[in-house]
């Protein structure tokens, strides 16, 4: 798969600053640049300055494909959900989606990546660009001892609470409750956790689920200390349970997309999750649709306190 020699859409470029690195999208045409600026204003940084983890830079070329990839839907489905086909290489990950192809670079010092579509407006469609960004972020997080986690990320009193769970566990419902109660929302779908100077930090990222981007956070530079991790399930009544380390690692591993089924990332993922579980309180939470957010947070904080005291 190599349309890297294909034509660019234009001559414009834009820096997209993620917590893990800065991506320079090059070869953009004016429409694509305007779409990026309007869809992700907090992540486009016109000044060329470092930002801690974002000091590393990679290039991603916007390319014009002659035709759509043409893979059957069955090849783009996993567990009943849309999932681009991935091929892992030593220095990059190739993605093939319904209407795009991409090469996601793994190392800043390596070959540039690229993102190809057949229609100019498709490049900045969330189903295209965010698949690129998610895969990129997951691999870069791992390089730094962190993870990208399927989770609802809520900020309460300056601390991030990550509620991990697969689709249908109630992440978006919890996010809506939290938002209505005044909590900050990082994401209702995928959150980025990285080791920080004093523990772990959850970072704002441009990936959202149904809830959409609502937090007016300052793009990739917003980071919140993580209070703990919650393994979310639906249940008959509101309750928290202690979780032993092996179960915690297993549940979190299942919630780490893009890297949990790759041989090359298996060992670093185990390392990262072992560190997370050792460094943060992890509890299981069962709750119902009609449990109030305040009651949920009281139960969670009590659970964390018991876990720290144990």
């Amino acid at each position, binding site marked *: 798969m190599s349309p890297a020699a294909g034509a660019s859409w234009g001559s414009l470029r834009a820096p997209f600053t993620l917590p893990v690195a800065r991506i320079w999208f090059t070869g953009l045409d004016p429409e694509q640049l305007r779409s990026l600026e309007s869809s992700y204003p907090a992540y486009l940084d016109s000044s060329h300055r470092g930002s801690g983890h974002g000091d590393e830079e990679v290039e991603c070329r916007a390319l014009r494909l002659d035709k759509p990839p043409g893979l059957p839907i069955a090849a783009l489905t*996993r567990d009943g959900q849309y999932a681009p086909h991935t091929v892992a290489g030593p220095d990059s990950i190739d993605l093939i989606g319904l209407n795009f192809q991409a090469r996601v670079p793994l190392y800043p010092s390596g070959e540039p990546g690229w993102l190809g579509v057949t229609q100019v407006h498709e490049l900045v469609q969330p189903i295209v660009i965010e698949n690129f960004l998610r895969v990129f972020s997951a691999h870069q997080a791992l390089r730094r001892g962190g993870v990208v986690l399927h989770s609802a990320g809520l900020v309460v009193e300056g601390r991030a609470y990550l509620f991990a769970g697969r689709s249908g566990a109630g992440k978006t419902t919890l996010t809506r409750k939290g938002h209505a109660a005044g909590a900050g929302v990082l994401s209702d779908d995928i959150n980025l956790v990285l080791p920080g100077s004093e523990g772990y930090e959850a970072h704002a990222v441009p990936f959202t689920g149904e809830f959409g981007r609502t937090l007016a956070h300052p793009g990739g530079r917003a980071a919140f200390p993580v209070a703990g991790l919650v393994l979310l399930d639906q249940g008959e009544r509101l309750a928290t349970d202690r979780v*032993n*380390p*092996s179960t915690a*690692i*297993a549940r979190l591993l299942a919630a780490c997309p893009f890297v949990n*089924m790759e041989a090359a990332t*298996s*060992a670093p993922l185990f390392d990262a999750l*072992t560190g997370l579980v050792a460094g943060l309180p992890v509890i299981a939470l069962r709750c119902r649709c009609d449990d109030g957010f305040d009651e949920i947070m009281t139960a969670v904080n009590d659970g964390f306190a018991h876990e720290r005291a144990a």
Partner: protein
Amino acid sequence: MNAQPDQERLRLSSQIRHRAVGEEGVLVHLANGRVLVVNEVGLHVVGQLAVPRTHKDLAASIAETFDVSPDQAAADLDAYLAELDAEQVLEHL
């Protein structure tokens, strides 16, 4: 699961990656994404299956390591192998 024929050897699938966590183990199947937790005995069995083993070898290893009778070891082993087989963790050689 019935007792394995003496000649058959078993090995951990090449699609499995695992890590010991305390006395338990976490396994992930790279092809189907399934994640399993095994207890101390299961972790021992998984460790033994890094190289091909017969059922007899595995049962003897369990009996020696956990100081249980050969019959108990064989019964435990049958249960574990059935579970691991159902999760496509094993390769039959």
